[in-house]
C-alpha cells in the first residue's frame, strides 16, 4: 500500500513565533497582520484593548488602515457597512452594550451581504451593570444573519479571526469571532504567531464583484424592497448560510494545510467515540469541561464532550451524528433566553435532535438510537462572570450518568452554581 504523504504546510515551524498573548492582544495582532482597509470602532470593556492596540498600530504606521474613531458602536457598524459597500475590507470589535447598540446595523450588514469581520468579546448585558463574561450579547445577535464562531482560547481567537476574513469574503456574509470577556480577553496564554507575509498571502487581496467605488459599473445598494422581492432576497441569504456550512470547514482545512495547525471545523470532540453521556458547550468553558472528562475517564467513566465552535450556521446534522448515540446530554448555556424553557444552545440542540430522531425512528436507523433518544438537560452557568468550576462540571456529569442509569430527569433546565 502506497502511503500518500500529506503536503507539508507552507509555513514552517521555524517561521512561527511562540509568544504570550492575551485574547485581546491576539486579536489585535491578527488585525494588524490582516491590515484591513478600514477599521471603525469604539472602545468598550472588555474589548477596549483590541481597539486601543490597533489604534497604536495605525499611529505607528504599522498598518495602512483608514482608522475611523467613531462616537458610538452604532456609527462603528454604519461606517463599516459604508466602507464594505465601497469595496473595502472592513473590521471592527465590540462587546455587550456595544453589540446591542449595533443591533439594527447587524441586519443591514448581512442583508446587504457585506463581508465585515468583527471581534466580539462576550460580556453580559445590563441590567444590572456587569462588565464580565456571558453570552447574552452574542446570543442577542444570533438571528442577525452573521456567521458566529466561538474561540476557546487566544490561539483560536487569532486563528479564527484570520480565517474569518476568508470565510466572510467567500460566503459574502459578515462574521463575528467570539472570545469570552476577561476569561480569555485578558488572560495571557501561549499563542503561535505566523509571519505577516504568510497571513497576507493566506487571506489574499479582496476583489469584490460589485462595489460602490467601481464607477465604471455603477450599482444601487440597499434599495427599498417591497413584498414582491424582499422574500427572494431573504431566501438568498438563507442559502448563503447553507453555503457557509461548506465554506467554514473548507477554510479550516486550507488554514491547517497552510500554517500547519489543527484542522478547524464546526466542533471538537473529546472522548465521544464510546461516551454514554456528553456535555456540549461554547467558548472557554470547553477547556474546563475537557479537563473534567479526562479526569473522569481515568476513573473509567464513559463521559465525553463536544466543543461547538460554530453556532451560526448551526451544524445540525454533524452535531446529531455525534450526539444521537449517547444516553444523556448536558447542554451548558452561558446565557438564558428567559423563555422559561432554557437557554439558546439548549433549544437548538433539542430541536436538532428531534428533527433527526423522529425521522430516523420511522426509517431504518432504529437500532442506533435508544427508544426515545437521548435525554437532554440544560445548565445555565457563568452569567455575569460567575465562575464555572471543574466541580460544577463534574456535578453535571454525575447527574447525567445517573440519568443514563435510569434516574428520572427532575428539571430539564436549571441554573448551575447559583445560590438557592
Amino acid at each position, binding site marked *: 500500500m502506497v502511503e500518500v504523504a500529506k503536503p507539508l504546510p507552507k509555513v514552517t515551524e521555524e517561521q512561527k513565533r511562540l509568544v504570550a498573548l492575551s485574547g485581546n492582544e491576539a486579536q489585535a495582532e491578527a488585525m494588524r497582520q490582516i491590515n484591513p482597509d478600514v477599521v471603525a470602532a469604539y472602545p468598550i470593556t472588555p474589548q477596549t484593548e483590541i481597539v486601543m492596540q490597533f489604534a497604536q498600530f495605525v499611529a505607528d504606521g504599522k498598518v495602512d488602515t483608514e482608522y475611523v474613531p467613531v462616537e458610538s458602536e452604532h456609527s462603528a457598524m454604519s461606517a463599516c457597512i459604508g466602507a464594505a459597500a465601497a469595496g473595502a475590507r472592513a473590521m471592527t470589535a465590540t462587546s455587550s452594550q456595544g453589540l446591542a447598540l449595533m443591533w439594527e446595523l447587524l441586519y443591514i450588514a448581512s*442583508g*446587504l451581504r457585506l463581508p465585515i469581520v468583527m471581534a466580539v468579546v462576550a460580556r453580559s448585558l445590563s441590567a444590572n451593570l456587569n462588565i464580565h463574561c456571558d453570552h447574552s450579547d452574542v446570543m442577542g445577535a444570533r438571528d442577525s444573519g452573521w456567521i458566529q464562531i466561538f474561540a476557546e482560547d487566544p490561539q483560536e481567537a487569532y486563528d479564527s479571526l484570520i480565517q474569518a476574513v476568508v470565510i466572510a469574503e467567500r460566503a459574502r456574509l459578515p462574521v463575528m469571532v467570539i472570545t469570552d470577556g476577561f476569561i480569555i480577553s485578558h488572560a495571557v496564554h501561549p499563542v503561535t504567531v505566523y509571519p505577516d507575509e504568510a497571513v497576507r498571502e493566506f487571506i489574499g487581496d479582496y476583489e469584490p464583484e*460589485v462595489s460602490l467605488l467601481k464607477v465604471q459599473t455603477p450599482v*444601487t*445598494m440597499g434599495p427599498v424592497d*417591497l413584498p414582491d422581492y424582499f422574500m427572494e*432576497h431573504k431566501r*438568498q441569504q438563507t*442559502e*448563503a448560510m447553507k453555503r457557509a456550512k461548506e465554506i467554514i470547514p473548507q477554510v479550516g482545512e486550507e488554514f491547517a494545510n497552510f500554517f500547519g495547525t489543527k484542522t478547524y471545523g464546526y466542533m471538537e470532540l473529546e472522548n465521544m467515540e464510546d461516551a454514554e453521556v456528553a456535555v456540549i458547550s461554547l467558548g472557554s468553558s470547553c477547556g474546563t469541561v475537557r479537563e473534567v472528562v479526562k479526569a473522569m475517564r481515568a476513573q473509567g467513566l464513559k463521559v465525553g464532550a463536544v466543543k461547538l465552535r460554530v453556532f451560526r450556521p448551526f451544524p445540525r446534522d454533524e452535531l446529531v451524528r455525534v450526539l444521537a448515540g449517547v444516553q444523556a446530554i448536558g447542554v451548558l448555556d452561558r446565557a438564558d433566553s428567559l423563555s422559561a424553557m432554557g437557554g439558546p444552545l439548549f433549544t437548538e440542540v433539542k430541536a436538532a435532535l428531534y428533527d433527526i430522531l423522529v425521522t430516523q425512528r420511522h426509517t431504518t436507523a432504529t437500532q442506533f438510537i435508544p427508544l426515545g433518544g437521548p435525554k437532554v438537560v440544560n445548565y445555565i452557568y457563568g452569567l455575569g462572570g460567575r465562575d464555572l468550576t471543574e466541580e460544577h462540571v463534574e456535578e453535571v456529569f454525575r447527574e447525567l450518568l445517573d440519568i443514563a442509569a435510569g434516574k428520572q430527569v427532575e428539571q430539564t433546565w436549571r441554573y448551575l452554581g447559583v445560590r438557592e
Partner: protein
Amino acid sequence: MSAIAQRTLIEIRWHARAGQGAKTAANILAQAALREGKYAQSIPEFGPERRGAPMQAFNRLSDEPFHMHSGITEPDIVIVVDPHLMDTIPVTEGLKPNGWIIVNTPIPPEEAQERWELKPYKVATVDASAIARETLRQDIPNVPLLGAFARVTGLLSLETLQTDTAQRLEKRFRDRPQVIEANLRALERGFNEVKWVEAKSIEVVTSEPVRVAAKGWKELVEGGIIPEPATSIMYRTGSWRLERPIFDPQKCVQCLMCWLVCPDAAIVLENGKVVGIDYDHCKGCGLCSLQCPPKAKALTMKLEAELDEK
C-alpha cells in the same frame, strides 16, 4: 366549486391614486357596515409612493364573523376611483362574473361596458369627480362613489353612510361644518346620479393574467443590488400626476429656478434653456410653478381631469 368560493362573503377592491380618499372611503364603508350589523374589514395597501401613485384598498363584508387576513384576489365588486387607471391597470383582474364594477367617469355605463370590455360584469358609472368639484371644490371623488355603491349594490343604506361620513369628518372639520355638509351632498348626489347596466354576457375570458415573470431568488443579484445605473428612468411616475404644469416658452425668462427645484429632473433643458417638461416623469407637484417668477408666469398648473375633458 371550491369551499372558499361558496362562502357568502362580499369582497371589494378599490383602485385609486394616493390622495383620492379611497382608504378613507373603505374605512367609512366598513364602519357603516358594522352599524348595520354586518361584520366588516377595511384593508389599505401601502407602498413607498406618494400622492398620485396608483394604490388599492379592500373591504370585506359578511353577515357572519370571519377572520382571514389575506389579500383579496377575486373580488365581487371593484370600485375605480380614477378613470385613468382603466387603461393602465388590469382593474377587472379576478373580478367574479356578474360582479359589479363601479367607475368614476362621465361616460354612460353602456358605453363604458363597450369601451373597456366589461361585458361579463354589471357596470355602474357616475361622474364622481364632477360632483366632488361642484360640492367640495376639489377632485376628491371618494364620497360620491360611496353613494353610488350603496345605490347599485343595496348592501348599505344611504342613511347609514350619511351618519358615518359625517362622523368620520367630524373630528377634522368640527369648525368647518360646511365641509361636512358638502360631503353629505356629494354622497347623496352619487347615490342619485349613478347609472348602471346588467352584465351582457356571463362568459369571462379566463386567460391567466398577463404579467412580466419576476425572477426567482436563484436568478436575482444577491443582496438586492440593482446592477445597472439610472433604472429610475424606467419608472414612469408621470402617471401619478393629478395636476399638469403647462409651459409657455413665450413668457419664460430662463431663470432656471424650475429646473433647480424640480425633484424629478423633469424640466427639459436644451443648450441651457428650458424647452419643456418631461411628462413621463413629472409627478405634478407644482414646485416649478410656485418658483416661476410672478411676472413671468411661464408655468401654470392645470387639473389633469379638466385637460382630459377638453
